[in-house]
């Protein structure tokens, strides 16, 4: 059965103020059933208060073969990381 049923990606927002985070995928015939399946599979232990489902087919993914040209050039641009500031201890965790 699952072979004929579309795949959906599931995003859960754990709390108000946080963003939806990808948690996995489910099979469902349509968007209504996809939300129910996501609720039943991924929110059994109080994981969140909002669910998004997106057809997996609607997601355009980067090509793993292009990983080197996509991501490695940023590796040496260490000046983009805010690591050159001295932060007083009193500020605590940032």
């Amino acid at each position, binding site marked *: *059965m*699952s072979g004929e*049923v579309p795949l959906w990606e599931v995003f859960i927002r754990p709390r108000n103020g946080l963003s939806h985070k990808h948690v996995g995928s*489910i*099979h*469902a*015939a*349509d968007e*209504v*059933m996809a939300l*129910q*399946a996501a609720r*039943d*599979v991924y929110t*059994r232990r109080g994981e969140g208060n909002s669910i998004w489902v997106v057809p997996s087919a609607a997601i355009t993914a980067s090509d793993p073969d292009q990983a080197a040209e996509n991501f490695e050039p940023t590796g040496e641009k260490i000046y983009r990381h805010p690591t050159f500031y001295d932060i007083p201890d009193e500020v605590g965790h940032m």
Partner: protein
Amino acid sequence: MALFDAVLELADDHLVLGHRLSEWCGHAPMLEEDLALPNMALDLIGTARTLYDYAAQLEGEGRSEDDMAYLRGEREYRNLLLCERPNEDFAHTVLRQLYFAAFMKPYWEAALSSSDEVIAGVAGKAVKEMAYHIRHAGEWVIRLGDGTDESARRMKDAVEALHIYTGELFEEGAAEGIDALPSRAAIQPAWEATIDEIFGHALLSRPVVQYPQTGGRVGKHGEGLGHLLAEMQSVYRAHPGATW
């Protein structure tokens, strides 16, 4: 003891239907439903536990919720016949769930203002659970009823097979004259409205029942309940007093 009997009837409905749903665990047609059906089973069994515990208190003879569930025989069970009907195929399972939840949601809504604190407390939790059961089972009924030729045929077969048990939902039983519990007969219009709306989308019609099946409230059950109880009670009866 009238309230005791009425609470026991409600508890038996929830435990037996919850056990039926739990039989799908590990056998559902897809992982998503393998989790959804036991989720609903756990809602029902949770309600049953509270009600058995309350029934045991009302009785005051030192019985526990486990004694209530595991040490009563088939003729002592007071559940609706609808709740014990076998799972058969998915159409039967989701329709049985819809029939039950479409009754229990307005029932618990009416019970929210009960003078009985335990009943009102159970109602507060159960209203939300039943709303989801209606939604989940209802969406399946719509998709199967308005689906393929085969799913539509199976959905119609399920209506044919199960509708004869729905009249029993509206019999007052032991709750007759108990103010702390809602009138069951008064729920019928709300139940019919829910079923008609979903059946409208599912291309199904609500049949007129010539020979309604009743008897669960006086312990007259179908042969399936004995098998269900034998399996459910086997561990407790082999190891009386065992806890886990």
